[in-house]
């Protein structure tokens, strides 16, 4: 059994019902939870592995959310910070669906615009919206392009873990 499979065994298979987000880019697990708006306040049981050894990625993060099945619409936005992530839907300890996150065309309300002159940073009733480019995202309002450090611009509340 490879390290990766061993970790999989330890960290993934012991969940009865819910979602396992695997192969998350190392160090991005808390951002994944932030984007998904999961902070444990609704009683979900959440387990997080950070910088776990991975055969494919070298190191990876892994997030288990018990009692909640995440939809593709909810998780595809993760492609911005964790393009290799795989989503495992678990029922009765079995993986009943497994897929990779897919690139979204638009990201709404997740990222803040780094341009201080952008109208989305004024006190206006407007949600941020970014078009997803091949190598970054672009604000649909001020048209600024963010190519690096996307996670730094996540504006949703951080989970209190």
């Amino acid at each position, binding site marked *: 059994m490879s390290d990766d499979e061993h970790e999989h065994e330890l960290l993934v298979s012991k969940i009865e019902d819910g979602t396992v987000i695997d192969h998350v880019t190392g160090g991005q697990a808390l951002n994944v939870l932030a984007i998904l708006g999961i902070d444990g306040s609704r009683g979900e049981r959440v387990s997080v592995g950070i910088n776990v050894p991975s055969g494919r990625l070298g190191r990876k993060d892994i997030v288990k959310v018990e009692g909640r099945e995440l939809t593709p619409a909810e998780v595809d936005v993760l492609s911005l910070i964790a393009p290799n992530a795989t989503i495992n839907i678990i029922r009765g300890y079995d993986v009943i669906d497994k897929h990779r996150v897919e690139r979204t065309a638009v990201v709404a309300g997740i990222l803040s615009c780094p*341009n201080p*002159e*952008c*109208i*989305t*940073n*004024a*006190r*206006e*009733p*407007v949600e941020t919206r970014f078009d997803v*480019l091949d190598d970054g995202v*672009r*604000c*649909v*309002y*001020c*048209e*600024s*392009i963010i190519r690096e450090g996307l996670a730094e611009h996540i504006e949703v509340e951080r989970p209190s873990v």
Partner: protein
Amino acid sequence: MRHEHVITAKGLSRADIETVLDRAAELEAADSRAVELHRGKILALLFFEPSTRTRLSFDAAIKRLGGDAIDMGAVDESSVTKGETLADTVRVIEGYADAIVLRHPSQGAAKMASEFVDVPLLNAGDGAGHHPTQTLLDLYTMRKHVGLDGISVGIMGDLKYGRTVHSLATALTKFDTVQHFISPESLALPANVRYDLHEAGSTVREHRDIEDVLPELDLLYVTRIQRERFPDEREYRDVAGEYGIDAAALERAKEHCKIMHPLPRVDEIDPSVDETNHAVYFEQAHNGIPVRMALLDLLL
């Protein structure tokens, strides 16, 4: 025109642009004073930043079309000082007017405002973003003098913050033009405009010295370098002096090369250029009337 709002020049197709320019030519030829096609229509002018030419030419344009303008006036005399959002302001004003002209210091302000209203909204400048109606009058002026295809255009000055530059450069990608960008490194084209130019298949040709490219140009579009972009007066003076043009320098230009400027100018075009055949910047400003009339005529 299919468009309800005019937010960026990029959002206008070549056909849209030509429709506006053709209509502007008709209105100009028809003696614009006599055209009263939109009697009773009201245009709201919301300028959150100072403006002379844009505000007055929109005012004149709607009046020459037989309509009238209502003007928010200076920001310090309006509800903005009471903390009203732009979204609320435009939602109220759309009940008073048939179209809204908006200038605002924040980039993306016109795009956002357009999402809150059903009447046509025209972006008259959003910070360092875009100024598409200026671009239409620029293109109208260019078409008259040098045409819009098969020409070489130089754009010089503050390319980073200059919204007229951003709109013009993206609009010119719809025509067969070669664009040269002349600026200090610190005021070069921003990443988002470069992205649009590359997406449109244009090559960004950059120069630090106007001398390198002046003899090739059919048209030179000069913009003002603003003092506040520089940490100190001396650095500003050094840079501003380098990115100006005078009649002597123009001896190396093609005889038919035209000089344009969105105005106001400071020192970047020496008054010695005014009397040469190269200068078309005052006519360019006058063209704001037929072009804005045409735009309103097509949108109202």
